[in-house]
């Protein structure tokens, strides 16, 4: 049963070789005679040269010996650490995945229904076109812009199904690298940790614009506008459509107008990351208002979408990249180039998640049910946000203003804790979160708000 490894790999001379021809080699579950030296010898292996030829991988050292162990992903690595923790009070506020009040993962009812429908209708599993499921692309663009939006009516949107938000951002980054050489992407400080990795790997330069003001635990609006203005003309400005990750701090509608003004002024290109449409406020339309504002001004823009959170389809990797162009012709051309970038990356996208979305959005009954489930999820998060705030205020008698927790929106809250304080949260309190002070409220139950409040207060005041 044993594979004869060493014998095969280290016979430099003909004498030893001829004895080998009598050996049997067994590989897997198939037997066959050694055919090493039977029959015609390859012309390069004359007896003289044989002794110089090393048949083995020379020194048995790996070609990958010098590779170092990469550090764990700062966000996804949190869940891994949480799993390893055996403490009974442990709390996972790391990755942004919705949990029920019982802290269980949640598969939406509409998703289960859609999957059942798909199974009943006996769909096949043929390759999707490179650009993805046509019905999904139509539905996703209409959901984002509104079906009656002129960008849709005029066919000015190039929509390509992508691998959730990450994959859609990566396709856009690849497009930027190829067609806007040297153009920079401006990203908020802070932003989702993976944004930088995506642009680095796509070889797109980036720089930061001020966003978070630690003094107010709010938006540094003047800094933001100033930095966008100072950037070279024609830069791409990465904006979070709603529910900024990690801070939860969004511009007000008036601030969005001013942001659009300065972007237009500098001929910058807005690039939205929309991962929480419907999940932030509970309303799909409201959460798309920033994108729609920019579109209504006739600007060309990019929008990456994800259905990970709002349809709970995390693992199915379903999203889209939308490029709004000034003409239908430009949209056609851009779409064809996005396809050209997708083909050598994964050929065509996965069908399952796309069909679920298309079935839910395309069926009025399911679509309404979805809106209800989304309101429920957003509602639960808002209520734990309130409860956390109330718990903290009840325990903290210093009069510190914690209202920023209430003003923030979406899955996350930027607690204002620094790295050392965040470490204390984990080490002392077994509360798992990212080092930037971000907690995922989606992972918080109202039952645990008191405990979390204690942890935050302890970390804030007793650790520096």
């Amino acid at each position: 049963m044993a594979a004869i490894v060493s014998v095969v790999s280290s016979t430099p001379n003909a004498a030893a070789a001829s004895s080998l021809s009598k050996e049997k080699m067994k590989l897997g579950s198939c037997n066959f005679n050694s055919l090493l030296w039977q029959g015609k010898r390859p012309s390069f292996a004359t007896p003289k040269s044989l002794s110089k030829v090393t048949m083995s991988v020379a020194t048995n050292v790996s070609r990958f010996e010098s590779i170092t162990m990469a550090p764990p992903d700062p966000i996804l690595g949190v869940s891994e650490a949480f799993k390893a923790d055996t403490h009974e009070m442990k709390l996972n506020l790391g990755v942004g995945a919705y949990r029920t009040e019982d802290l269980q993962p949640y598969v939406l009812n509409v998703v289960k229904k859609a999957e059942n429908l798909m199974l009943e209708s006996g769909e096949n599993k043929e390759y999707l076109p490179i650009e993805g499921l046509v019905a999904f692309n139509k539905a996703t663009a209409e959901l984002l812009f509104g079906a009656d939006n002129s960008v849709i009516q005029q066919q000015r949107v190039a929509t390509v199904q992508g691998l959730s938000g990450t994959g859609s951002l990566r396709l856009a980054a690849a497009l930027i690298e190829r067609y806007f050489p040297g153009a920079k992407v401006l990203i908020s400080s802070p932003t989702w940790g993976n944004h930088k990795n995506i642009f680095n790997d796509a070889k797109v330069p980036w720089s930061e614009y001020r966003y978070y003001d630690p003094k107010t635990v709010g938006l540094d609006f003047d800094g933001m506008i100033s930095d966008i203005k100072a950037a070279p003309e024609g830069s791409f400005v990465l904006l979070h459509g709603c529910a900024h990750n990690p801070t939860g701090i969004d511009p007000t509608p008036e601030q969005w107008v001013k942001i659009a003004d300065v972007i237009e002024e500098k001929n910058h290109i807005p690039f939205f990351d929309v991962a929480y449409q419907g999940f932030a406020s509970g309303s799909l339309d409201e959460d798309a208002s920033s994108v729609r504002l920019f579109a209504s001004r006739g600007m060309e823009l990019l929008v990456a979408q994800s259905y990970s959170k709002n349809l709970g389809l995390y693992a199915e990797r379903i999203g889209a990249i939308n490029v709004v162009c000034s003409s239908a012709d430009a949209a056609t051309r851009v779409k064809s180039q996005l396809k050209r970038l997708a083909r050598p990356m994964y050929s065509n996208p996965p069908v399952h998640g796309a069909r679920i979305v298309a079935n839910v959005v395309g069926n009025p009954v399911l679509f309404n049910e979805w809106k209800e489930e989304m309101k429920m999820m957003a509602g639960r998060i808002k209520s734990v946000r309130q409860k956390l705030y109330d718990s903290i205020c009840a325990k903290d008698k210093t009069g510190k203003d914690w209202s920023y927790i209430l003003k923030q929106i979406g899955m996350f809250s930027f607690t204002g804790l620094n790295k050392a304080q965040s470490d204390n949260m984990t080490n002392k309190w077994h509360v798992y979160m990212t080092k930037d002070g971000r907690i995922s409220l989606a992972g918080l139950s109202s039952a645990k708000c008191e405990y979390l409040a204690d942890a935050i207060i302890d970390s804030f005041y007793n650790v520096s």
Partner: protein
Amino acid sequence: MSSVFANVVRAPEDPILGVTVAYHKDQSPNKLNLGVGAYRTEEGKPLVLNVVKKAEQMLVNDQSRVKEYLPIVGLADFNKLSAKLIFGADSPAIQENRVATVQCLSGTGSLRVGGEFLARHYHEHTVYIPQPTWGNHPKIFTLAGLSVKTYRYYNPETRGLDFEGMLEDLGSAPLGAIVLLHACAHNPTGVDPTIEQWEQIRQLMRSKSLLPFFDSAYQGFASGSLDADAQSVRIFVADGGECLAAQSYAKNMGLYGERVGALSIVCKTADVASKVESQLKLVIRPMYSSPPLHGASIVAAILKDGDLYNEWTLELKAMADRIISMRQELFNALQAKETPGDWSHIVKQIGMFTFTGLNSEQVTFMTNEYHIYLTSDGRISMAGLSSRTVPHLADAIHAAVTGKA
């Protein structure tokens, strides 16, 4: 209004997938799609395997099933089972924990992730690909950051393997260069080395420290036997050396659209394998964060269940057998028509495709006059043929070859 996209030109359709696009536009009732390699039944319909339907029903019925993010490396069970499938359950490399396996987006995704990994961590940045090869190979590796060279492979005169040329070209490659090898059922030619030839290739490659990168898209689908179709890979792993292997379940499990595959890197030591895995995660995270769940769950369910696995092997064999019988029927039809030329390569070649030897003018003729869709290199997908359509194809080939253009 001026556009920032003014300089973006319209890209042509993908040469392979574009064939299906053109086919769909054709209104003729006689049209035949022999372009993309997707299996069709005798009735010309796509096929969802029975085991896949069963597995899917099980998954959908499982109330405890969730849709949480997979780890960056994908579904653990799927990874282990995939490595066993290609390397053999008793492979020492697996038992010694020397294999880093990550779930990827079918074959394409596995090749891309492997290519990116090598571009970052391997000292040699040239990959040698066979001439010809699947049209997407050079694009994948180029975008991954590698430079691409070719080695002789197909001999148009014999319509078989140019073995001497292959050995010469590999022999003159720089030490340590990466070499792409089709594990079985070479695409587009259907021409595979014999096991004896594989052994010589192995020895040559090891003597020059060339790094094998296997593309295994047809395991089980080529000969009907999962083990036989993995022999080329297994003889390399058996000698204790390192290699990469990209696996796809698109064809052998009919999971095309679900994008299920795996990249395995066989390393010298478990320690190296563990570091390699950690670095693969850094390639994957900024590309798509983590892979899709559905297809991998189906594969894992089938591979881990003895009954489903056995059923699968039977369905797989049936698909392979149907293709082999189409080869015979086409060959017989051309013999009966006394079409000029030696058509024996149709039955000698293996796998989904036949490299007909037709040139691009003849291909265009067949498309325009007979509404037969194939890639311009003369490759036809036997999986798209049926007993009913063989005569039509034979007519078209006959007309193209006898110059009725």
